[in-house]
């Protein structure tokens, strides 16, 4: 197994420290990484919003954006520009501090997840030993800020939206972590990069050794919990527009609203990217000699975007749960299933360790 070579953090910092003081190198790296994440989320959101509108449009026998730019490609850019120009309204009776800080916190927690995403063998901003845990922690931090947004808006719709969002994220955190455990157990590590590395190779010469083939149930549970975590249909209760207008973002406008929007799509991508990392073999894929360092990244993006497409597909097909049904689904169906999944993965780990499979199929 590769050890520390997979982490960009020491490599870059060491390189920077060659011609500047250590503290400056450290600081520069962090600022640079933050900017990188910001740019990445912004670009991804631009692409994903466009993709969502196009995909949803075509699924509804519509066309989606067509006019702004070729094939309407500039539509989201135009929307972003519009949101930036809008007046920044802070309603009179809001809790100002929380109201202002909430969208930034949502965006922040979304951005932090990007830090541990292994985009390619060498491109991971910081390969923490507890990468998966880090991802889970910042995923649930988002609900905290959504409650802040809902509470501080001094709007009953927003408050109900915030409450729903917390109830939802807290409940779905449980089966999500339990379903992650399967992959973690198989890889024997909670570092995201190590989990990807553990999925290297092929079975029988053609089946990639991705954990989804060992953990189909875990993947499905993770996917559903991911939908809940990001508030996508069928778990879009916090902002269910037919009930709560826009939920916790009812009172937001302009750039603050855009931040929620960015974070929503950033989160959707982060969840897909994590699914790719944990179950779909991350950046593994055939590498062609042309630009060999770029291919893993491309494979990673292709897989992650495919998962995101599935999210959008589900979003344009299914409908919303009721709050109690949503809770029932988490606690009565997903939690027992994910516990079962842990037993299955334990069995799989035992079998793999014993080497029976290896003897049979030469893996």
């Amino acid at each position, binding site marked *: 197994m590769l050890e520390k070579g997979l982490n960009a953090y020491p490599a870059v910092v060491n390189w920077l420290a060659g011609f500047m003081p250590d503290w400056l190198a450290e600081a520069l790296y962090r600022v640079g990484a933050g900017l990188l994440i910001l740019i990445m989320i912004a670009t991804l959101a631009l692409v994903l919003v466009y993709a969502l509108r196009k*995909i949803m*449009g*075509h*699924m*509804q*026998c*519509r*066309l989606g954006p*067509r006019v702004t730019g070729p094939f309407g490609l500039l539509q989201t850019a135009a929307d972003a520009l519009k949101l930036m120009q809008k007046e920044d309204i802070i309603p009179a009776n809001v809790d100002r501090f929380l109201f202002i800080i909430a969208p930034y916190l949502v965006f922040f927690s979304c951005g932090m997840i990007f830090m541990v995403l292994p985009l390619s063998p060498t491109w991971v901003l910081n390969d923490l030993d507890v990468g998966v845990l880090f991802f889970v922690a910042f995923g649930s931090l988002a609900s905290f800020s959504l409650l802040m947004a809902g509470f501080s808006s001094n709007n009953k719709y927003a408050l109900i939206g915030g409450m729903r969002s917390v109830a939802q994220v807290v409940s779905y955190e449980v089966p999500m972590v339990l379903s992650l455990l399967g992959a973690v157990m198989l890889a024997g590590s909670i570092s995201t990069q190590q989990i990807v590395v553990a999925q290297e190779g092929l079975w029988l010469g053609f089946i990639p050794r991705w954990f989804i083939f060992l953990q189909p149930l875990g993947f499905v549970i993770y996917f559903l919990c991911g939908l809940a975590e990001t508030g996508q249909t069928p778990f879009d209760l916090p902002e269910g527009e037919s009930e709560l207008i826009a939920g916790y973002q009812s009172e937001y406008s302009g750039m603050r609203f855009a931040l929620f929007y960015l974070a929503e799509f950033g989160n959707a991508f982060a969840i897909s990217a994590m699914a790719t990392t944990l179950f779909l073999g991350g950046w593994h894929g055939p590498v062609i000699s042309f630009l060999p360092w770029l291919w893993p990244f491309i494979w990673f993006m292709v897989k992650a975007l495919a998962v995101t497409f599935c999210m959008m*597909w*589900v979003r*344009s*097909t*299914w409908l919303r749960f009721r709050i109690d049904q949503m809770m029932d*689904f988490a606690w009565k*169906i997903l939690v027992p299933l994910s516990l079962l999944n842990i037993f299955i993965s334990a069995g799989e780990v035992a079998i793999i360790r014993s080497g029976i499979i290896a003897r049979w199929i030469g893996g």
Partner: protein
Amino acid sequence: MAHGIGALKGLRVTLGVFLTKPITIEYPFKKVKFSPVYRGGFAFHPDRCNACKSCQNSCPNKVITITGERGEDKKMRLVKYEMNLNYCLYCGLCVEACNKNAITMTDQIDLAAYDRRFLKMELFKGPSIGPAGGSDAGGDKAAKAAGGPAKAGGSAAEEGQRKVSQ
């Protein structure tokens, strides 16, 4: 809840639609052809009108005001034809009432204007013109009308835009 087959069927439906051609018409660039009886903006043909006021009487909302005068040959002649499209329901009762086909409906749908004032318009004004279409018609509206039918809705929108741009 039990199985979830139905939810998966739904996914198949949306994917199927995703892969087929959308049915939307890109409206401002392509336009659908309306049926010949479509009830859009009005077109007035002053040369056919004999100021009988059928349309004025049939209108539920008193949109139409006709001023006619009796000429030397004791025939009614149209002097002024006004429509206040603010109140128009586009029900087509006036068109039905007209025996001479002097007022008809077109397939114009861009009937919005920037100001209510622009929806109140004179489709025809001037001293009487004969059935052949006299050249002594006064006013720019009438000059337009002599060449072809005056279109109520379209001119409203155009006029509105012109006034706003000034």
